[in-house]
């Protein structure tokens, strides 16, 4: 339909028609918005590893998603007379990114010469090399890695080209040589690189990156070549330059780069032509530039002692000063063996006489100096630090699902930095591992089997720790197995501390499950009995591959997963899915009253639909105003015993015939089932007037200061509370105090069509309390089978496909919740209060369901 058609109609009829059209568009938008969210959740669920999906699935699901998001944008523009052309631009940009990923055209962020270390990831390893990609991932896991940036492989190519060096040809030529001629040719080309001139744009990018690192720090310049540290490493063949003053960065850079053409590297390539990075075409080196860690002690740690794997020990080698001595195998070195499971006790120690240490030299570079006599025979790591280091290595191993070889440094403040991590090749033999597992698992009692749903595959062991309340979270010991009754979103901050997660209740699409997949923490949810069967302190092995929990630590199982199959996360399809989701799922826009809430800020599909959804609600209010001005409107006010001031817009059998033509309708005249249920629950005794009153002064002041701005931003003259209804459908927009609730419901006799969508956003008080409130809501919602996403103080939750009766109960819970949270944020002075109110809510409102059921029974 063209917009031109109706401009020629008489004004009054046009308004009504316009309004109806707007409402239809709105419904369509909401439907597509739900579809899109569904698809995003579905994609996230596939990351659990529990599914087999192929590239056809990825193409299909992204195509469906694209259609839904495009539909959302289209409908918003249709209902607003094209007010948001820029949203279409944002959608198209996001779509281009998604399509590029699907087609395998990978975009490197930034100018292409430099990537910040905290942005490096395995998905960008073509640009950053494996070594720096790994460090980037570890930083995101919450481990301490040095600040820094990566000069990309693209920069390397540009540098070589601008200095007239054809890398591919040079490698081919060198490969045909051996012995002295190879040495000579290699020397010549390396000299050309050392004397080369960095192109101005590269110089500029690096300067900017250096200035971001801050002053007064020297640098470690490390190779990160393609193929290095990958499946077969070029270990030790490339160089590292330590303690470089920033102005001399390029000297070091070119030195490291020249390593590409070293004679040993060339012969290694020739001998291993099929190894990643070995083909002449794949010649490329990224170079990491990191701030130098002034190490008190340093060294190497293997997650399994390769010389006696059956002992199940981590082995740590350490010396005073930089770990260079340990890496190079010089000088006296302390050696420790630790248990592989938390709390990682020291099993054996051999303290060497350490006469020399490697330190940063004032003139740049490093120097050997004597260790003061009184420290020579003293262990250079305390047991406490050793245990922390062990935890780091185990975490790294669990994440990459490979035994690890980690280079580390302990700084003066006692903090441990990871300088490098790579897979440790221990050949245990697949068949032996499998046989070990088969004979071992029979020896351990099975505590849970096939009870729940795997939210993230993997195997890990540890001591059980129950988390029920906020204080448990603070006491949670690193490496323990997190056991909780519910998959509360609040537990997400423990995911990276826990070795595994088991819950009694919960969904694989929940927030906690999503975070578990991000950190690759094995997780089983919805087991029913976890909190009863898994007793605090009990040592258990969680096998989230087979959905079994064993009593005791089963080392054979853990070992087998590290050496039998390739980690599924590394499969092409998984990597692509992760990359797609990164362009689709993150939500950057939250609060409409922030300056960033613009189409231009939408970078992902989720942003686009979030923006459209919000604006659509605003358009409805505007259109109602316009309709009212036209004098005729399919809308009535509802006469209620609470001051809700609710306008009901009937788009088809949402009100009884008795309400027709009246200025005010009564609750009995509401035919729309969802609205009736919602209002009935709001009107139940104690729901509307349930707010506790101990408003503390700070929260109150803060609410005062926000009032004016909030009012100006969100007051619409059509009244702020609107329900758009038909017999089975309701879209309810409620502004209560400073909270904005949107409830979108479809309830019919058909189970598969039923859904409830609930969105909560609101202000007053400071952001800490607002996000506390969001956590409170999320908690209660998840306990009632809603899937929940939260960002700051925005809560988006959905539930679907349950029987009408079950949906009605959920809707009633929403009614209670809306009433309950009206004033709540000002009361949430501490995290503990969140627990208290979750329980208060359960006591006060959820008991009602039981009462009702018992009453009817």
């Amino acid at each position: 339909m063209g917009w031109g058609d109706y401009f020629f109609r008489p004004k009054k009829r046009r308004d009504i028609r316009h309004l109806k059209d707007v409402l239809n568009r709105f419904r369509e938008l909401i439907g597509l918005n739900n579809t899109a969210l569904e698809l995003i959740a579905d994609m996230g669920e596939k990351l659990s590893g529990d599914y087999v999906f192929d590239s056809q699935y990825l193409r299909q699901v992204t195509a469906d998603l694209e259609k839904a998001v495009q539909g959302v944008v289209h409908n918003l523009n249709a209902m607003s007379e094209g007010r948001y052309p820029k949203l279409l631009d944002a959608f198209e940009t996001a779509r281009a990114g998604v399509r590029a990923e699907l087609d395998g055209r990978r975009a490197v962020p930034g100018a292409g010469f430099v990537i910040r270390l905290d942005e490096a990831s395995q998905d960008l390893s073509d640009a950053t090399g494996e070594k720096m990609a790994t460090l980037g991932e570890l930083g995101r896991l919450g481990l301490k890695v040095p600040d820094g940036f990566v000069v990309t492989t693209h920069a390397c190519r540009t540098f070589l080209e601008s200095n007239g060096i054809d890398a591919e040809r040079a490698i081919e030529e060198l490969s045909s040589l051996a012995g002295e001629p190879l040495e000579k040719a290699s020397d010549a080309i390396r000299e050309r690189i050392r004397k080369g001139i960095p192109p101005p744009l590269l110089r500029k990018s690096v300067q900017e990156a250096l200035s971001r690192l801050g002053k007064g720090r020297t640098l470690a310049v490390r190779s990160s070549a393609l193929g290095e540290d990958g499946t077969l490493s070029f270990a030790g063949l490339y160089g590292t330059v330590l303690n470089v003053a920033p102005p001399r960065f390029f000297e070091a850079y070119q030195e490291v780069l020249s390593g590409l053409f070293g004679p040993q590297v060339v012969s290694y390539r020739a001998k291993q032509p099929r190894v990643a990075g070995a083909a002449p075409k794949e010649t490329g080196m990224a170079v990491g530039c990191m701030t130098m860690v002034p190490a008190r002690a340093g060294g190497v740690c293997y997650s399994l002692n390769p010389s006696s794997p059956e002992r199940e020990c981590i082995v740590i080698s350490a010396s005073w000063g930089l770990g260079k001595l340990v890496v190079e195998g010089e000088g006296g070195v302390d050696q420790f063996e630790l248990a592989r499971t938390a709390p990682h006790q020291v099993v054996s120690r051999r303290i060497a006489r350490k006469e020399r240490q490697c330190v940063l030299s004032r003139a740049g570079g490093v120097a050997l100096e004597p260790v003061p006599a009184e420290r020579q025979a003293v262990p250079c790591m305390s047991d406490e630090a050793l245990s922390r280091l062990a935890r780091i290595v185990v975490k790294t191993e669990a994440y990459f699902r490979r035994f690890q070889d980690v280079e580390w440094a302990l700084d003066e403040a006692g903090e441990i930095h990871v300088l490098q991590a790579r897979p440790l090749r221990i050949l245990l033999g697949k068949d032996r591992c499998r046989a070990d597992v088969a004979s071992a698992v029979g020896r351990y009692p099975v505590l849970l089997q096939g009870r729940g749903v795997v939210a993230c595959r993997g195997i890990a062991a540890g001591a059980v720790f129950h988390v029920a309340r906020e204080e448990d979270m603070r006491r949670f010991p690193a490496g323990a197995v997190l056991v909780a009754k519910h998959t509360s979103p609040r537990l997400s901050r423990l995911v990276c501390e826990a070795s595994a997660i088991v819950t009694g209740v919960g969904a694989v699409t929940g927030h906690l499950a999503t975070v578990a997949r991000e950190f690759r923490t094995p997780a089983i949810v919805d087991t029913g009995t976890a909190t009863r069967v898994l007793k605090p302190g009990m040592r258990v092995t969680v096998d989230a591959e087979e959905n079994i929990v064993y009593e005791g630590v089963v080392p054979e199982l853990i070992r087998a997963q590290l050496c039998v199959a390739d980690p599924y996360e590394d499969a092409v399809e998984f990597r692509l899915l992760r990359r797609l989701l990164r362009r689709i799922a993150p939500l950057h826009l939250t609060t409409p009253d922030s300056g960033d809430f613009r189409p231009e800020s939408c970078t992902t599909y989720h942003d686009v639909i979030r923006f459209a959804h919000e604006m659509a609600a605003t358009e409805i209010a505007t259109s109602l105003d316009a309709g009212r001005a036209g004098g005729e409107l399919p809308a009535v006010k509802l006469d209620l015993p609470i001051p809700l001031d609710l306008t009901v817009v009937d788009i088809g059998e949402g009100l009884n015939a008795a309400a027709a033509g009246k200025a005010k309708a009564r609750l009995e005249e509401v035919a729309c089932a969802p609205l009736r249920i919602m209002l009935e629950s709001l009107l139940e005794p104690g729901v509307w007037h349930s707010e506790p009153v101990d408003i503390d002064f700070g929260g109150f002041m803060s609410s005062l200061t926000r009032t004016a701005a909030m009012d100006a931003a969100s007051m619409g003259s059509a009244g702020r509370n609107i329900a758009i209804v038909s017999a089975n459908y309701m879209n309810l927009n409620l502004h209560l105090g400073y909270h904005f609730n949107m409830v979108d419901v479809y309830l019919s006799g058909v189970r598969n069509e039923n859904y409830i969508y609930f969105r909560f956003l609101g202000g007053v008080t400071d952001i800490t309390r607002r996000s506390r409130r969001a956590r409170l809501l999320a908690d209660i919602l998840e306990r009632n089978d809603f899937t929940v996403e939260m960002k700051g103080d925005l809560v988006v939750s959905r539930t679907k496909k349950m029987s009408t009766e079950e949906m009605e109960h959920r809707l009633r819970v929403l009614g209670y919740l809306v009433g309950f949270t009206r004033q709540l944020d000002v009361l949430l002075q501490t995290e503990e209060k969140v627990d208290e109110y979750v329980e208060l809510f359960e006591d006060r409102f959820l008991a009602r369901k039981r009462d009702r059921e018992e009453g009817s029974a």
Partner: protein
Amino acid sequence: MNEQRVLILDDEPTVGERLKPALEKLGFVVEVFTKSREALKRLDERDFHVVVTDLKMEGPDGLEVLGLVKRRSPGSQVIMITGYGSFEQAREAEALGAYDFVSKPFKLEELCKRVVKAAKKAVLE
């Protein structure tokens, strides 16, 4: 004890990559193919207790594979993997004696369960 053999055929390599270790863990001997011609050749040499095959493929499709298996070794059980828009062929496969159907994407555990069930039913001469 006699080993039970499973052949997996899907032109998307990930299917075999994921299924093989999971089925091996359950004690099956597994062979994986991504090209239907090669799988047909192998099926002509050797009987398998269970064949898991994609329905839609380049070259000979799942129906041809099913046909060959049922001709050569009626006691073998065939599980068809169906994808988008292969509904018609799925009905045909059912008529031709396919044991079970799984639609993509599927849960690893679910398929393993069905293979175990199919293997119990399989009788090789």
